[in-house]
């Protein structure tokens, strides 16, 4: 990382402040002059987009909570009150509901990017693990948020998903009772889900700060996967990446606004505009689109407990990624085999999403099983094997030096690796 630059307070006040609370120094070092690899592409703008998504969800959520009533007999009507009677209530609510979808869309791209460029590898394991924690919290928050409108899908989705807990031996039943605040999804469930749905975004916010902190210790990965060597490899975060991130975010906003203003209900299920009725089960119970891949994994397994374990396992396995893929070369650019298996992985993930919306029978069930097997095999079998056998392509010496590094057989330019010595000025 580049440490040539030092923040120097310019006027009397900033000197005074710098000795007491180095706020300006912090902002300067982390937001303005922060040295960032100069070759980051648009996939690297999703971190900023995700931060904006979180902020949007929190702000719109706080406003919604001012009008929403977490009570089974009033919740559904209070949402309609927001839609019809609250000034711009429809806007706030559509921003929040579609914002959740946008949030997940962005996080999926962000995660696939990390997988492709090996951003989870040494020295960025903690960043990745914190990211998985955020993702897990997002899923829980999103699921609880979907329950709040108290529509048919809210109620039955909550019933199906919470009942999964009951499959866990011994502790399952008491934990389920605690989760529901009773023996079935009812008013106490709605109350605690509302409370937690309000709490968790702030927990996410906290973990995001840790995530960014960890990122600012190691510095960014980049599309070559070669570590930054000197200041020639970097540009300051501001104005380069503030402007690039903002541009990317505005493009993202355009898509977001299309959904808000022109197709606000397409990502939701029509049944959720029917008030929850515990006596009437919908023909198909489907979760929100972003949970469909996990739902498909759950239903691919004939045994209920195994299904639950695999569903949670599909996220838990991500925590171990840095130790499953031990290949020193980070970026898939220089890993021809990994690149193929990665693209297959993306396709199978999308397929799982598609299958999650289909009934678990016939060809759909078969495909779900194949995809589930590939999902786990990618992490548990393919990654460790590739780490041993794959021969990476010749790599450039550095980010700013496209000359091929003949000396490198498997060094991805990890700190302390011999390639550092090759760095010529």
């Amino acid at each position, binding site marked *: 990382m580049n440490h040539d630059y030092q923040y120097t307070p310019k006027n009397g006040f900033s000197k005074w402040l710098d000795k007491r609370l180095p706020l300006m120094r912090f902002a300067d070092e982390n937001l303005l002059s922060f040295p960032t690899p*100069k070759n980051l*592409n*648009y*996939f690297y703008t999703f971190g900023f987009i995700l931060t904006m998504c979180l902020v949007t969800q929190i702000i719109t959520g706080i406003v919604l909570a001012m009008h929403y009533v977490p009570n089974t007999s009033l919740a559904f*009507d209070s949402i*309609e009150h927001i*839609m*019809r009677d609250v000034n711009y209530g*429809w*806007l706030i609510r*559509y921003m929040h509901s579609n914002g959740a*979808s946008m949030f997940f*869309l962005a996080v*999926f*791209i962000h995660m696939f990017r990390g997988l*492709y460029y090996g951003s989870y590898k040494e020295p960025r394991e903690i960043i990745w693990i914190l990211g998985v924690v955020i993702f897990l919290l997002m899923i829980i928050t999103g699921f609880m948020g979907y329950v709040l409108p108290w529509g048919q899908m809210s109620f039955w989705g909550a019933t199906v998903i919470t009942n999964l807990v009951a499959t866990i031996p011994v502790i399952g039943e008491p934990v389920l009772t605690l989760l529901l605040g009773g023996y079935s999804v009812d008013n106490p469930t709605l109350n605690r889900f509302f409370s937690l749905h309000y709490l968790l975004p702030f927990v996410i916010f906290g973990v995001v700060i840790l995530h960014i902190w960890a990122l600012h210790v190691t510095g960014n990965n980049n599309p070559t996967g070669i570590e930054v060597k000197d200041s020639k490899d970097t*540009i300051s975060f501001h*104005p*380069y990446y503030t*402007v*690039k991130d*903002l*541009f990317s975010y*505005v*493009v993202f*906003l*355009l*898509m977001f*606004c*299309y959904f*808000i*203003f*022109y197709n*606000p*209900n*397409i*990502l939701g*299920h*029509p*049944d959720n*505009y*029917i008030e929850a009725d515990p006596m009437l089960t919908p*023909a*198909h119970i*489907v979760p929100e*689109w972003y949970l*469909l891949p996990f739902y498909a994994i759950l239903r691919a397994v004939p045994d209920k407990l195994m299904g639950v374990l695999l569903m949670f396992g599909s996220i838990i396995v991500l925590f171990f990624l840095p130790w499953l893929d031990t290949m020193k070369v980070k970026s898939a*650019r220089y890993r021809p085999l990994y690149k193929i298996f990665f*693209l297959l992985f993306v396709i199978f993930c*999308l397929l799982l*999403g*598609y299958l999650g*919306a*289909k009934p678990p029978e016939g060809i759909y069930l078969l495909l779900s099983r194949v995809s589930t097997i590939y999902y786990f095999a990618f992490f548990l079998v393919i990654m460790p094997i590739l780490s041993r056998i794959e021969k990476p392509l010749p790599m450039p010496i550095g980010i*700013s030096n496209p000359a091929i590094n003949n000396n490198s057989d498997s060094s991805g330019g990890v700190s302390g690796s011999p390639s550092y010595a090759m760095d010529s000025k």
Partner: protein
Amino acid sequence: MNIFKNNIFIFFVLIIGLSMNVNSAEGTTFKNLKPGFSFEGPFGKFDKESLKRGYQVYSEVCSSCHGMKQLSFRNLSQPGGPEFPTEMVKEIASGYSITDGFNEYGEPLERSMLPSDRFPKPYGSKEEAKGANNGAYPPDLSLIVKARLDGYNYLYSLLKGYEEEIPEDMDIGDLSYNPWYPGGAIAMYQPLYEDSVEYEDGTPATVDQMSYDVANFLTWAAEPTMEERKRLGFIVMGFLIIFVILMYLSVSRLFRDVH
């Protein structure tokens, strides 16, 4: 590498496509008729005359069994809806009465309705509604368009889709046959016949016309803020498009010297 870079667009399209697929996963096998509505499309606005007629059909036919609990009479005069004159809405509301509060002897007080009151409920309770309709509950219509896949086309098709001839292999008992209803056997009898209502504006009340007007009215009722949403959307999108061009120029300028 380039394939991967360009794939971001395909990726978006795929995810959006898949999510749409989620919703189409459980449609009726019968394809809805699409008569074409004025509110469709990014600049669509409601046909106010059709909304007025639609309200007339609702209040004269549908409202005997179906409530619309999310709507108040005042909504009928609000911009972006049928836009009845305020005086007329007062008159419409005063035609109904409601038990509200108590007099000085503690007896329930009856008064005529005001524009601020919700549409009257056809039944006192869900049980009463079921009892009066052979055990079938006539759903509230406030959100019916949003609560059904391809809502307005579905409603239009359903309302004009009743058929006398029942397929031979079907036994539907007391129910009516309507191929647009999932399963084909529907508890609601055919509600609209030629001249079921006499339109105040003189439009001939064909089944097709009434179905169209009701579908129009219920679409508005499901989201009275639709016109405002599309209008604001145009302004916001317009701003963002200009903004995104400026941002693009800024990025290109800024990175011109970064090699």
